């Protein structure tokens, strides 16, 4: 499979150069009325519900650890 992601060569401790994932954002600035809008990236109802489970996990998922659901309860 062809890797479409941009890669960069970086120096790393103990090794000369390593290949790391480069930036993934699109070049340029968004323009027009849609500038900055991100919610339309989620198209189907399933995608939106899935996003709520991860993005708003405190309310809609069992998979999170925070002040009210600690990995090791105090």
């Amino acid at each position, binding site marked *: 499979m062809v890797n479409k992601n941009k890669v960069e060569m970086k120096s790393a401790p103990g090794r000369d150069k390593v290949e790391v994932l480069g930036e993934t954002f699109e070049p340029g600035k968004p323009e027009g*009325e849609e500038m*900055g809008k991100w919610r339309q990236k989620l198209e189907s109802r399933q995608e939106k519900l899935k996003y709520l489970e991860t993005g*708003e996990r405190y*309310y809609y998922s069992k998979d999170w650890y*925070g*002040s009210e659901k600690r990995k090791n309860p105090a």
Partner: protein
Amino acid sequence: MAEEKKLSIDPATLEMIEKANSEGVSTAFARAEVMRPCPIGAEGSCCSNCAMGPCRVPLPRGRTETPEEKKKRRGVCGATVETIAARNFVRKIAAGTASHGDHGREVAKVFLEMARGEAPGFEIKDEQKLLQLALELGVNIGNRSNKEIAIDVGKILEADFSRQEGELVFLKRAPIKRQEIWKKLGVLPRGIDREVSEALHRTHMGCDQDYKDLLLHGAKTALADGWGGSMIATELQDIMFGTPAPVASQINLGVLKIDEVNIIVHGHEPYLAETLAVVAQMPEMIEYAKSNGAKGINLAGMCCTANEILMRHGVPIAGNFLQQELAVVTGAVEAMVVDVQCIMQGLVEAASCFHTKIITTDRRAKIEGATHMEFDEHHAVESAKAVIKAAIDNFPNRRQNVRIPDYKTDIIAGFSHETINYLLGGLFRASYRPLNDNIINGRIRGVAGVVGCNNARVTHDDVHVTLVKELIKNDVLVLETGCAAMACGKAGLLVPEAAALAGPGLRSVCEAVGIPPVLHLGACIDNSRILIAATAMVKDGGLGDDISDLPAAGVAPEWMSEKAVAIGQYFVSSGVYTIFGASWPTEGSKEVTDFLFKEMENLYGGMWGFETDPLKIAKMVIDHIDKKRKALGIDKARERVLYDMAMRRELEAV
């Protein structure tokens, strides 16, 4: 000789005050010079709740009162100054809660009409927010249509206004510990209207005469605003008009255009303004404007209606509360279209000196001398067209005395909770974790909500801007709403480039994420977004388990309206140290003031504060943040220890 108070720090405002004075136009700035505030009312020592009064029980001026004098400070009915001050305070909370609640009720009504197909100008623009509320409220999603789901969501939220027993549905969003505090204190609001109604009853002559009990109900009523009326309005508006995302625009009177039909929308409720934003772009309306000699239609906002359509459409803002008459003074405004709240009656008199039409559009807010064109949500587009047509017809009536100040500033707005979550964590793991981590590691010292109005008793915008500059300089991330955000927008603080004014830690975070150090979260009802953001910080972990544990504070340095008192109290009741500027409405009673400023911290974890000097306010905020950091154990940088397996085994054995 005392130094003369500077009226504003905004050059556009000063230019228009000078124009108004030279043309003999009355403005709030000039009236404030003549109408001094009543010193007895200002300190909350006047009771006009029955016809045996008004009873005035002021503190003696310039000296400490004796116990005998204190005993005599009673109304005809015997009400003490504590009862009188507390009653006045609670009535302000009730009025503020009623105002936001009535806004929320109208939104719920239009939302349900939209869902039932009875308001064809409106639609569901954010399905995701609808699904979120459906999950939260236990509404079945399945394969049902959005409108079917919306009807169930709308009915549940509409019931919050008239519920007699139980508790408001959004209270469950708060951190668990906060809910337990409210339950223990008995301040979980039942229904929004019920708490407002009971507040008015309790403060009636001869009813609740224990100031602590009165203030307890004040806290309950205010919670019905923040976690009730305001939050319902915000959430349902997001579904109908879209959840805000970053948007670029401009602010100040310079956004008015000399060769176009200028229409300013002013007030707080967004339905008409939302429709106007769409209709103003229709080719037939632009053609009609051209046929009347204009090059186009320029829609701009004022006050919180402006914030609503800025956040969602990037419609430019002409100014904040104290600039409303000054917009008319430019002579370039064809119509100022108003809905509810914060609309000065002085607008009509100012407009009489120019060609401007003041158009009232809401059945609840008519003004003598204004043109009333009631907005009908069932025929939203037709209503909007009629308003725009009236403005266009007025374009040829412009007079010679037109002057638009050449001042406007770029701004970025649209930072809802959802968008902050997305910006910090990305699409696949949206999160407040980076914010919490950067607070814990000290790059960000803490968070301050700077909100509220303008007040003609203080230098316009000065307290907001000086305070916020000092806060970001000290690495405090600032969240703003309302006229406070507009003041900072005019000062150039709402763009990412403003990070250059921030301390090195905050600056590095802002540059990494690409956000301004001052985030605009919306209108005054959108202070509920700050509650949600604070809750998300708590739930993400590492900063305690309640809002009162966060290194955070709130400020309304130029407040003036009763809504601000309700907002302040719901922040205090939610655990936030909240500081007001301008004046303090219970200064007539030391006991009541001490209760609000000190004892409330023992009850709610948050308390009130008062200070007029912006630099002193900043110090109070920073000191409080540092106190909270110390309590969390994040006040000092600690050496990081990398545990090897042996150390881990040793730890687990303990």
